[in-house]
């Protein structure tokens, strides 16, 4: 059949039908005009793609997320001043050089804390001076009802709030007595002591705009260094603060009142911080090395301590999660293979006559096979694309509800998921397609 040029020309006016176009027209017809079967095949690979993508997305993101979340459960490295420098706290220079040392081992978040003993309604409490942003960033697990501290406003621990019947917006008067801190210095390292700052207190108190009674209270405090604290039990003067929020961590933080560093300085004068907490991304081994390095360094004048519990449980959970992922993935893969294979087998048996006819018209086994493989790949592609989309939505919802983080679409993983779906669909159709290409036209067409 020589193609005559007139016909060719006429053909070009419409869409010229070539053999390749005809091939795809046949595949298109099979996929889109026989929807019921096609839908079954697409659904099989869609379910597989959705499950695999969702699992993979969660398992790729969650370990990262979990390390972040775990680190948010406080620090994995704590640095405190050594015996020699504990009274003055850590100077800004020391803090920055420690931070540099720690960050050299892996990126880290840090926060400094300064602790002073203060009087609220005459009872002693620990007042922590913090940089709000640092602490909030480091301690994501802190449940803060209300707001974080700001100027003139404090964050009160749950236990403190319960003991004093405080609510958000309540007013409290906080008084600083140098004597309390001088006494505490020997008993507690981290609670801090600031005896040496005693002289600075009156000045700061006045600049903070306190009343004369406040100044008086301070002086009384200074004069009662010998432990006659109980004598001024009725003295409830102090600087007035408002409760910005109440923090609930289930830990020792619940017994502390937090103020901004500026407010604490106004109240208790200048002093360095007592603790630097780090949340480092370095591995457990790296952290151990880092701790040794810091402790050996005499120039820093600090003690480092590793909080190892979280780091190791972190990795264990991630390993468990990944093992689970592989296990479920294999099961899903097998199920998808079986699903697509069964559907393809049913498609092939339903189209026996058509295959017989094609062979009667001169189709070779290879060309019949090629058609079915491409058709199957198309089911895989459709299922893969839709399934990946659905899987992403599931993974996103899962991350949102369980891990409280948004999940961005990983294009590489998406592509891998679609390609895998196509591959599974093709592999699953090997057996049915082989059966199809062996169909004898005479037997099929003879059937009445």
């Amino acid at each position, binding site marked *: *059949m020589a*193609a005559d040029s007139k*016909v060719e020309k*006429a*053909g070009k006016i*419409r869409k*010229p*039908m*070539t*053999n390749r*176009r*005809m*091939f795809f*027209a*046949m595949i298109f*017809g*099979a996929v889109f*005009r*026989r929807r019921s079967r096609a839908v079954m095949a697409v659904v099989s690979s869609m379910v597989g793609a959705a499950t695999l993508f969702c699992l993979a997305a969660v398992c790729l993101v969650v370990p990262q997320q979990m390390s972040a979340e775990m680190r948010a459960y406080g620090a994995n490295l704590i640095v405190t001043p050594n015996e020699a420098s504990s009274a003055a706290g850590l100077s800004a220079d020391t803090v920055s050089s420690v931070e540099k040392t720690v960050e050299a081992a892996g990126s880290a978040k840090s926060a400094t804390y300064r602790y002073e003993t203060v009087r609220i309604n005459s009872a002693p409490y620990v007042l922590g001076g913090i940089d709000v942003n640092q602490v909030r960033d480091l301690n994501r697990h802190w449940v803060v009802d209300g707001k974080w501290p700001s100027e003139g406003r404090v964050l009160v621990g749950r236990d403190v709030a319960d003991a004093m019947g405080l609510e958000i917006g309540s007013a409290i008067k906080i008084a600083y007595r140098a004597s309390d801190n001088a006494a505490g210095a020997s008993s507690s390292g981290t609670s801090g002591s600031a005896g040496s700052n005693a002289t600075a207190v009156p000045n700061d108190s006045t600049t903070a705009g306190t009343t004369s009674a406040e100044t008086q209270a301070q002086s009384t405090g200074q004069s009662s260094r010998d432990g006659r604290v109980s004598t001024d039990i009725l003295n409830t003067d102090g600087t007035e603060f408002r409760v910005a929020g109440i923090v609930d961590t289930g830990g020792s933080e619940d017994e502390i009142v937090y103020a901004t560093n500026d407010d604490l300085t106004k109240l208790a004068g200048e002093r360095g911080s007592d603790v630097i907490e780090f949340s480092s991304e370095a591995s457990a081994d790296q952290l151990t090395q880092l701790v040794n390095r810091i402790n050996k360094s005499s120039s820093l004048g600090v003690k480092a301590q590793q909080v190892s519990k979280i780091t190791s449980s972190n990795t264990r959970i991630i390993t468990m999660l990944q093992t689970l992922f592989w296990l479920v993935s294999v099961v899903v893969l097998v199920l998808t293979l079986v699903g697509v294979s069964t559907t393809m087998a049913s498609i092939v048996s339903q189209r026996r*006559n*058509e295959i*017989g*006819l*094609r*062979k*009667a*018209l*001169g*189709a*070779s086994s290879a*060309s019949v096979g090629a058609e079915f493989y491409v058709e199957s790949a198309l089911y895989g592609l459709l299922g893969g694309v839709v399934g990946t989309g659905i899987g992403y939505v599931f993974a996103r919802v899962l991350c949102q509800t369980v891990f409280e983080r948004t999940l961005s679409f990983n294009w590489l993983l998406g592509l891998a998921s679609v390609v895998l779906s196509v591959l599974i669909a093709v592999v699953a159709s090997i057996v049915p397609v082989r059966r199809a290409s062996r169909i*004898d*036209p*005479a037997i099929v*067409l*003879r059937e009445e």
Partner: protein
Amino acid sequence: MLLELDHISKIYGSLHAVDDLSLTVPEGEWLAIVGSSGSGKTTLMNMIGCMDTPSKGSVSLEGRKLEDLNATQLADVRKNLIGLVFQKFYLVPHLTAVENVMVAQYYHSVVNEKEALEALDRVGLKDRAHHLPGQLSGGEQQRVCIARALINCPKLILADEPTGNLDEKNEKIVLDLFRQLHEQGTTIIVVTHDALVASCAEREIMLNHGVLVGEKWNDEDARAKYEAAGGKPASTGSKSEGAQTGETAIGFADPTKAAKTGGEE
């Protein structure tokens, strides 16, 4: 001769579906193979159509012996020489009429939609070209099937009960199409148990349980031409009763539709 059957038999166990048949068909002849159901007509057609091989004997198409060819070569012969028309049409249900015609082009050589539409025009279905088989009547589907059979200009059209599923009106349309094809010189072999369809052919042979039991000519001019060209009557080596074994044709009465309904089916 276009087709030569030399003592062919198809044997399934103890059953002789076709029993030792010799037959020659010249180019341009219209032959009807008649007989009741189970008489071996379709088996014979499958062997002529390169879809089945005889247990004994040989089939030659255009002088080529089919038993010497492998499956691929048989497929080539089938797509180059033969156009197939089936009782049950066997259109691909998810392809439109014109696409069904183009499928034959696709496996033959090059797809050409214009020619496919012309073929549909020839069977009076140009305006139904983009309908799916499910949207066509039985007669229309059979006409699509004929358009598909003739799209590659085959030398031989093999039709198995082409009017078996059609009403009288459509039967007439299909027979008219065959008549046109015959006038254009196409060789047609029709398997049927319909007397009317058989009577349209120039020559009829009758099978009964795989055995040739009769032969008759409806067109004496064609017979004279055939014999002048050295053509011999069909014959069988079967020893069955009533078999046409010799050099002379045994006449027979046309089978009727009544015979069909009383048959083994």
